[in-house]
């Protein structure tokens, strides 16, 4: 089962390799990982999507917590915490005579922005939940995806309470 985990870490040299090394060294999966500093520059926030059974996920969160540089670990999925999840993708689609209109229609439906245009392609910027991202990729595939880049999901707990 997929789990979305947020890890707050010291924003220090080598922390990313500690986290990624932990996953590779213990045979845990990383489906995606995104990381950047928080409002407090001394802390970085990672959003990791991983998968495994309950036993593995328990080890993942415990092992993450064990790292000296780890300040907090939240397994949104495992703890049943309500959260919102968004991902940004940039996607370069074939857009020629016959398909331009269709690409634009899809872009409209998904509230995508066209951020680069050439006679043969459109580059779209799409933001949304993992389901939405999957759907738009599915629809654009038959038209022809030339290139695609995604941030991986970012997650934030619902409600007024915040972790800086």
């Amino acid at each position, binding site marked *: 089962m997929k789990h979305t985990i947020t890890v707050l870490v010291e924003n220090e040299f080598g922390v990313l390799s500690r986290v990624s090394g932990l996953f590779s060294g213990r045979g845990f999966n990383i489906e995606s990982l995104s990381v950047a500093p928080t409002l407090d520059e001394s802390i970085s926030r990672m959003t990791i999507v991983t998968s495994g059974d309950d036993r593995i996920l328990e080890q993942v969160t*415990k092992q993450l917590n064990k790292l000296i540089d780890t300040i907090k670990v939240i397994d949104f999925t495992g703890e049943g915490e309500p959260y919102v999840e968004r991902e940004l993708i940039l996607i370069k689609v074939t857009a020629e005579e016959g398909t331009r209109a269709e690409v634009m229609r899809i872009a409209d439906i998904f509230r995508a922005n066209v951020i680069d245009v050439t006679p043969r392609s459109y580059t779209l910027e799409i933001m949304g939940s993992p389901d939405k991202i999957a759907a738009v990729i599915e629809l654009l595939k038959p038209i022809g995806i030339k290139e695609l880049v995604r941030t991986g999901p970012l997650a934030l707990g619902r409600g007024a309470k915040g972790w800086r």
Partner: protein
Amino acid sequence: MKMTGSQILLACLEQEGIDTVFGYPGGTVINIYDDLMKSDKIRHILPRHEQAGVHAADGYARATGKVGVAIATSGPGATNTVTGIATAYMDSIPMVVICGQVPTALIGNDAFQEADMIGITRPITKHNYLVRDVKDLARILKQAFYIARTGRPGPVLVDLPKDVQTASTIFEYPDSVDLRGYKPNYSGNARQVAKAIKMILAAKKPVIYVGGGATLSNADKELITFAETIQAPLTTTLMGMASFPKRHPLSLGMLGMHGTYYANMAVTSADLLIAIGARFDDRVTGKISTFAPDAKIIHIDIDPTSIKKNVRVDLPIVGDLKDVLLKMLKQLKEVPDEVETMVVQTTAWRAEVDAMKLSHPMTYTPSKSVIKPQFVIEKLRELTDDDVIVTTEVGQHQMWTAQFFDFTQPRTFLTSGGLGTMGYGLPAALGAQAAFPDRQVIDISGDGSFQMNSQELATLVQNRLPVKIVILNNNFLGMVRQWQQLFFDKRYSQTCLESPIDFVKLADAYGATGFTTSKPEEVEMIIKKAFATPGPVIIEFKISREENVMPMVPAGAGINEMVLAS
């Protein structure tokens, strides 16, 4: 007053109360060594290989309970420390390893003697640091020692570039450490403890299973009181062995692959297993599905990741063992009648276990014509005091020592349990002897393992460390040979050490003393002679070549499927 980085390093070591370090000089630590000459508080011991230096610091740490310190230069010096660090990491030994590094401006340029030690040691250290500014050095060292010795202890590496050692700043050693991501939980949850007490009082067939954590937590006395209070049979891992006297009536000896039959069968029949500072290693559990199948499991450990890693756990208690044991003892004291009832209701269980002890004792077939290794171990025990410190290498001799040497005091058995490092014992003995010059220190070794760090004879001689090295010589890499005999139709691929070594001459060449014999009737005499000889001594026993470590659980089998004799 301004001080250089290397002066600050030494000042920090002094502040931490470090009196002995094990290290090897080189280009990027030369400044440290220059300042070391001026220090009269820190004794430096020079091993002949950095790996041995780290093992020596490890042996020092295990024997004393203090943090061991090792120093190595950058590049090959630093990479040589890797096996020593991994050994300490697997057994949770507190240690700080200082490595020189090329100047910060050259890092990443493939400079002469550069190696990325932070990257290399990341998975085998509790934490590691690259010091990039001399202003951070004192804080980092304070943190390094704090991390090494607190919580579940472990090695910490500090990579120290040469220019940081020569740069100057005002030295101020911090009083305390505040790491927002590292706050080990020492105090066991009282409600969990109460639940544990309930489970214990309801048990009919309890077994206590103790690992290295008991010694690390200095909880040996509490452990004995606990076992005696609930009158539960107690088995230990290799790492937990010296924390509970083997001759205690409740002792089952070691469990697992080469454990006692009765320990393994008791665990298999138990209805409650109380795991204390142990991590359910595969050499202990055998096939997981048949390990303690009928038992509820209480797992007490300071490291949450150890809990439910390998086996299901019914009741976890995270905390320092000493704290948890004291809390349990306190709660037990409040219900003397229920404890009494529990002790009565487990009488039959103890009788069952005692009957197994009598029917399947740890034993071997004695011989009058060849020296049996087990006989040597028994004789060694007979001729040493209770506070003798024994180290081993890894292999058959290690298991024979575990099986036949009855340890009675904590921190007297130093062995590489987790990583299983051949070549550990001699340098570890060196470190232990440096810590306790007046105690007897013995390295029990095989002819294979001994050769992995035999150069340390020179260090022993130079530092007048009178370690006695017992080599159980079968001209084989015995443990692998045993597996080849039992599971590979006796195809002894690359396990026969066919070039016989004259260990007496070898000892002589280093300025030590050597004795040798192949006669059982000379064993006692030679041990006595060797013990009476000052300085380091090699005692070689040419033993029965194809003796096996028995009983054993074949790899992949359950611990209830022991092979008793080969």
